[in-house]
């Protein structure tokens, strides 16, 4: 019997079937590319306002944060909504975080620093908020570089999982980066929104692992 409360279109079965369908990945991939396409179109057509470089750099930063939220939503949503097949999309979402963060860094180095590498190094060392952003990107790079099946097998699941937990460090660093950037204007409303979302997503994981941890007596001896 169908549950009346849940709309048919959102029933786990339907969504799961679609997520397993061959169209799901290309469509979600296209969706992830839309912000970049829109930004490039706006830049080429001079639609980025009075200070296009600033608008571009900041939008790319915003999209990095949004995809970070999306990738951390995958597991909770899978569990709550009962869409296990969503796990198939997690690697792509993670790579989109890396993609937008890389464009963000590239746009900064290009339009703010004009590829004067000495100035970039000075800036990274001088401004903690830039340093924190670069650290987050380096962690994303390490995760992106180890996101291939072959590398995962070579590393072993244990070590791979350990490395990829650094996504939580990325979340903390990204929020700190954003917080410091906005501190000049004492304007923390948006920062607080991202911090609250990321904290609750992290909090949910802590809560879940706490609930799952069996009592010491029931623990099996480790291998």
């Amino acid at each position, binding site marked *: 019997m169908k549950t009346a409360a849940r709309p048919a279109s959102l029933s786990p079965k339907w969504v799961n079937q679609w997520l397993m369908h061959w169209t799901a990945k290309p469509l979600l991939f296209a969706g992830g590319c839309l912000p970049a396409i829109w930004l490039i179109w706006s830049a080429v057509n001079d639609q980025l306002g009075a200070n296009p470089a600033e608008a571009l750099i900041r939008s790319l930063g915003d999209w990095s944060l949004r995809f970070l939220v999306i990738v951390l939503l995958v597991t909770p949503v899978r569990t709550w909504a009962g869409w296990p097949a969503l796990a198939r999309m997690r690697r792509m979402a993670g790579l989109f975080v890396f993609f937008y963060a890389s464009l963000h860094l590239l746009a900064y180095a290009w339009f703010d620093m*004009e590829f004067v590498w000495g100035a970039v190094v000075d800036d990274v060392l001088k401004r903690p908020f830039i340093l924190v952003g670069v650290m987050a990107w380096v962690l994303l790079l390490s995760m992106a570089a180890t996101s291939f099946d072959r590398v995962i097998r070579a590393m072993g699941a244990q070590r791979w999982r350990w490395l990829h937990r650094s996504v939580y460090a990325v979340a903390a660093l990204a929020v700190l980066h954003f917080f410091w950037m906005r501190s000049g*204007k*004492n304007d923390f409303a948006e920062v607080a929104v991202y911090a609250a979302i990321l904290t609750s997503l992290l909090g949910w994981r802590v809560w879940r692992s706490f609930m799952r941890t069996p009592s010491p007596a029931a623990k099996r001896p480790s291998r």
Partner: protein
Amino acid sequence: LSGARSGVAGASTVEAITSYQHASTYNNFYEFGTDKADPARRAGTLKTRPWTVAVEGLINKPQTLDLDDLLKLSPMEERIYRLRCVEGWSMVIPWVGYSLSALIKQVQPQGSAKYVEFITLADPTMMPGIRSNVLQWPYVEGLRLDEAMHPLSMLTFGMYGEVLPNQNGAPVRLVVPWKYGFKSGKSLVKIRFTEKQPSTSWNLSAPQEYGFYSNVNPDVSHPRWSQATERRIGEEGGLLAKRRKTLMFNGYEPQVGQLYAGMDLKKHY
């Protein structure tokens, strides 16, 4: 609102003028919000008439001037100034107004007056940004008396041949072209002459970042970014336009350099 071409030295740069569109939609005027698009969107609520400016403190002739008195106080001039924001961008704007010194001479400062304090309107009914605690309201800025008396310091009522749009500081604002833009208070309601250096809003908010002088200086970095270069808004080439080298005193060194003779500008930033 039109003005005759100014005869003041340095008052008419021949650089390409920033478009009115950019100059009136990319603004820092926190009383209307901290986003640069906020002032143009939200400053419609500002009522600029009736408007008075109280002039008080260490002067022989304290007075409250109506906007019409101020408009008639001295002949209007058009001056094309570079504007350098502390955030690292710049514009070139044709302002309409006259030297602040004309007003100062009229109110006759006493010998003890060393500084001039400029106080901006802080009316929460017209200015939605006042509700936030970004800065201490009202917004206060200040100059040394000799800086205020410099002919380039301008009491401004218009731009691009028109009355100032609200978002640019209507109906009357200050323009001090050799200092970072935040030194030039908008929508002024009070001018006070003091013996002690006034406490200014940005200096109170972040003293290590915003000094009292805040002269444009490519050699003194902001703690969070370099001031060596700037992005000229609306520059040919758009996104790919090269940043410009920032000039000492925003290029007004020949005119104002002597005001700071012997001063350590790294200390008095």
